[in-house]
C-alpha cells in the first residue's frame, strides 16, 4: 500500500487567472440560463417543431453522461478487478462522475419545458416502461444517488475528528462527529454493493442513451442510425472512460503545478486501444453489414461529420495509443486522449442533432448564442466546483515529493 500516494486536500491559491476566466464564463452562461427560465425556450434557443432537441441535449446531457464514464470504468478496474495500482485515480474519477451527472441534471432542467415536473417519472402512476427515455431517466437518477453514496467515505474521512463549528454551534461537534462515524461504518461495510450497482446502472443507461434515437429511423441519417446504436454508445462510453481520466489528471497536475502521474496513466492507457478497438470493429462491421458505406462520400454534412468524428477523432487516437511511445510520452498521450474525447462529444452531437434530418424542416438547426453560452457556462461551473472540492476534500494524490518521504 505504501507506494501509492495518499489523497489529500490541495493547498494552493484559489483565484488564479484561469479561475477568473471560468467565473466570467459561468456568470455569462447562468445569465442566459436565467433568461431562458424567465422568457421561454424560444427566446434563448434555435429549437423549433422540426428540431425539438439541440445542443443542450447533445452536449449537456448525452455527452455529459458519456464523458462521466470515467467513474464506473475506474470503479470496475480498481474495485471489481482489484487493480490496486489505480486507486489514486479512483477519487478524481468519482468526483468527476458525481459532478458530471449532477450537471447533466441541471442542464436538463434548462431544456425541459415543464422542468418543475422533472420528478414525475419517479411516480409509479406515471411509469412508462415502453419509453427508452424513462429508463434512461430512472437509471441516471438512481446512479446519481449511488455516486453520492460512494462519495460519503471521502467526506467522512475529511471531517471525522475535525468537526469544529464556531461559537454556540460547537455543542453540535460531538453529535456530528458521531453521525459521520456511523455513516462511515455503515456504508463502509456495504459499499461494495453500491460499487457494483454503479457499474450495472452505468451499463444500462449508457446503452439506453443509444437506443433513444432508434425510434426515429426515418429522421436520423443512415450513417448514424443503427439497431446496434445502444452497443455503440456503451462501448464508446467504456472506451472514453480512461482517456477522460487521463485528460483530467493531466490538466489537474498542470494547473496545480505538479508532474503528470505517468506511472499510473501510462499503464492505464494500455486498456484504451483494446476498448476502442472493440467499438471500432463493431461500428465498421455494422457499416459493412448494412451497406451504409455508400454514404461515406456523398459530401453531406453527415458524411463529413463521420469522417471527422470517426476517422480523425476515433481511429487516429486508436492508432496512436497502440504505440507504447505515445503512451509513455505525456504530450502525446494527452493529445490522443483529448482527440478521442472530442470524438465522443462530436459523435453524441451527431446522433442527437447533426445527423437528425427531420422532414419538412425549413432550415437546418444551428445552436443559438444562448445555447452555446449556457453549455459553456455549465462546463465552467463544473470545473470551478471540481476545484473547490479538491481544495476541501482529500481527492487528488498528495504531490509526489511528499510521497517519497513516506
Amino acid at each position, binding site marked *: 500500500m505504501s507506494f501509492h500516494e495518499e489523497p489529500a486536500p490541495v493547498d494552493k491559491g484559489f483565484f488564479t487567472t484561469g479561475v477568473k476566466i471560468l467565473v466570467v464564463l459561468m456568470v455569462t452562461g447562468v445569465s442566459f440560463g436565467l433568461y431562458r427560465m424567465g422568457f421561454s425556450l424560444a427566446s434563448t434557443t434555435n429549437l423549433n*417543431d422540426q428540431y425539438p432537441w439541440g445542443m443542450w441535449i447533445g452536449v449537456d446531457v448525452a455527452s455529459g453522461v458519456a464523458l462521466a464514464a470515467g467513474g464506473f470504468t475506474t470503479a470496475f478496474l480498481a474495485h*471489481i*478487478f482489484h487493480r490496486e495500482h489505480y486507486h489514486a485515480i479512483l477519487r478524481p474519477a468519482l468526483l468527476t462522475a458525481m459532478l458530471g451527472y449532477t450537471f447533466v441534471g441541471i442542464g436538463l432542467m434548462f431544456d425541459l*419545458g415543464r422542468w418543475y415536473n422533472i420528478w414525475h417519472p419517479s411516480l409509479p402512476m406515471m411509469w412508462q416502461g415502453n*419509453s*427508452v427515455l424513462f429508463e434512461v431517466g430512472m437509471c441516471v437518477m438512481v446512479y446519481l444517488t449511488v455516486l453520492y453514496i460512494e462519495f460519503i467515505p471521502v467526506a467522512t*474521512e475529511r471531517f471525522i475528528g475535525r468537526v469544529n463549528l464556531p461559537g454556540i454551534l460547537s455543542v453540535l461537534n460531538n453529535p456530528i462527529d458521531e453521525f459521520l462515524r456511523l455513516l462511515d461504518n455503515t456504508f463502509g461495510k456495504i459499499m461494495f454493493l453500491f460499487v457494483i450497482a454503479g457499474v450495472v446502472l452505468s451499463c444500462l443507461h449508457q446503452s439506453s442513451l443509444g437506443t433513444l434515437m432508434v425510434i426515429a429511423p426515418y429522421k436520423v441519417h443512415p450513417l448514424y442510425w443503427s439497431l446496434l446504436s445502444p452497443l455503440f454508445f456503451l462501448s464508446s462510453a467504456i472506451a472514453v472512460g480512461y482517456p477522460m481520466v487521463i485528460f483530467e489528471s493531466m490538466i489537474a497536475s498542470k494547473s496545480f503545478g505538479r508532474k503528470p502521474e505517468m506511472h499510473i496513466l501510462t499503464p492505464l492507457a494500455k486498456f484504451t486501444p483494446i476498448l476502442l478497438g472493440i467499438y471500432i470493429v463493431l461500428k465498421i462491421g455494422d457499416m459493412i453489414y448494412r451497406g451504409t458505406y455508400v454514404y461515406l462520400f456523398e459530401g453531406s454534412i453527415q458524411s463529413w461529420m463521420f469522417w471527422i468524428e470517426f476517422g480523425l477523432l476515433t481511429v487516429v487516437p486508436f492508432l496512436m495509443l497502440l504505440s507504447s511511445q505515445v503512451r509513455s510520452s505525456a504530450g502525446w498521450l494527452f493529445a490522443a486522449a483529448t482527440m478521442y474525447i472530442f470524438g465522443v462529444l462530436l459523435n453524441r452531437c451527431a446522433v442527437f442533432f447533426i445527423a437528425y434530418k427531420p422532414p419538412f424542416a425549413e432550415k437546418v438547426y444551428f445552436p443559438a448564442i444562448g445555447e452555446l453560452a449556457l453549455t459553456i457556462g455549465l462546463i465552467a461551473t463544473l470545473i470551478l466546483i471540481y476545484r473547490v472540492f479538491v481544495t476541501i476534500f482529500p481527492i487528488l494524490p498528495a504531490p509526489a515529493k511528499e510521497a517519497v518521504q513516506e
Partner: protein
Amino acid sequence: MGIDRRDFLRLLAGIGCYTVIGKSTDVWADIRTVGHGDILGVLVDTTFCVGCRTCEKACNQINKDLPRKLPESFEDSSVFEKRRRMTTDSYTVVNSYPGKKNRQQFVKFQCMHCNDPACVSACIVGALTKEDNGAVRYDPWKCIGCRYCMVACPFQVPAYEYSNAFTPQVRKCTFCFELRTSKGEMPACVEACPMEVMTFGKRKELIKIARKRIKRYPDRYVPHIYGEHELGGTSWLYLSSLPFEDIDFPKFGYTSTPGYTEPIQHAIFKNFIPPLTLFAVLGCFMWFLRPQDKKSEPLLREEGQEK
C-alpha cells in the same frame, strides 16, 4: 423446530424484495400499445378536396384551448402559396400541390393517430395515451416538456409552445376525443367538410370502402391506401390521385417505429433478469479476485483509512 428471529427477518426481507421487484416488473412487461379491434378512423379522399379550409375553421372552433381566429381568416386562399405545417394554434392544415391537368390538389393533414404511436411509446411519463377508440391524447399535467414525442413522431406532427416560459404544452389534433369521438360522434372537421372529403367510421370498414373506390375508379386513384400498413397502420387513411410522395406523405415501411425500440428495451429489462445477472457476475468477480493477503480488511477502505 420453530422459525428463529434471523430466519424470520430474512423471510421478511425476501418478501419485501419480491413485492418491490414484482410490482415494478408490471411496468416493464411487454405491453404494446398497438390499436386493435374496433378502433375508429377517418378516410380522407383527397380527390374531392377543394381547399375551402372549412375543416380548419371547424377545428379552431371546437378546440376551445386553441387561440380563436376570426372565421373570415379561413377564407384567405393566399396561405396556399406556402406549404404549412401544423402549429401550436392549428391542429390541421390544408396544403396545395400541383395536381393533374394543371389543377391544384389540396390535402388536409393532421395527426394520423397511429395504431402503434411512436409518440405514445416515447413519452417518458405516459402523458400521451392511445385510447380504445384509436385517439391519441395528451395530458399536459403529466408532461415534463422533454419533447421526445416530437423526436419520435415519424409524421412530424406535434408542435410545441416554445414561447411559453412556464406552462408550455405539446399541441396536436385530439381526434375531438372529449367532445365527439368518445361518444361515437364524428370529429368537427369531418362534419364541417362541405365536399364530404372525409368519412368517419370503424377503421376496418373504412379500408373496405377505400378498396372499393380504388377498384371502381382505377383512373382516379393511385392504387394505395396510405395508412393501411404504413408504420403498423394509422387511424386516418388517405386516398390520392397523385403518388403519395408528391403530396408530402413520406415513404414508410410497415414496421412501427416503436417496433424497433421496444424489443431492445424489453430485452434489456425483461423482469430485470439481465441487470441482476450482470450484478451477480460482477459480484462474483469482485469476490474471487479479491486480494488474498488482506482478507480481513473491509473492501474499498484501503485508501487513506488505515493510517
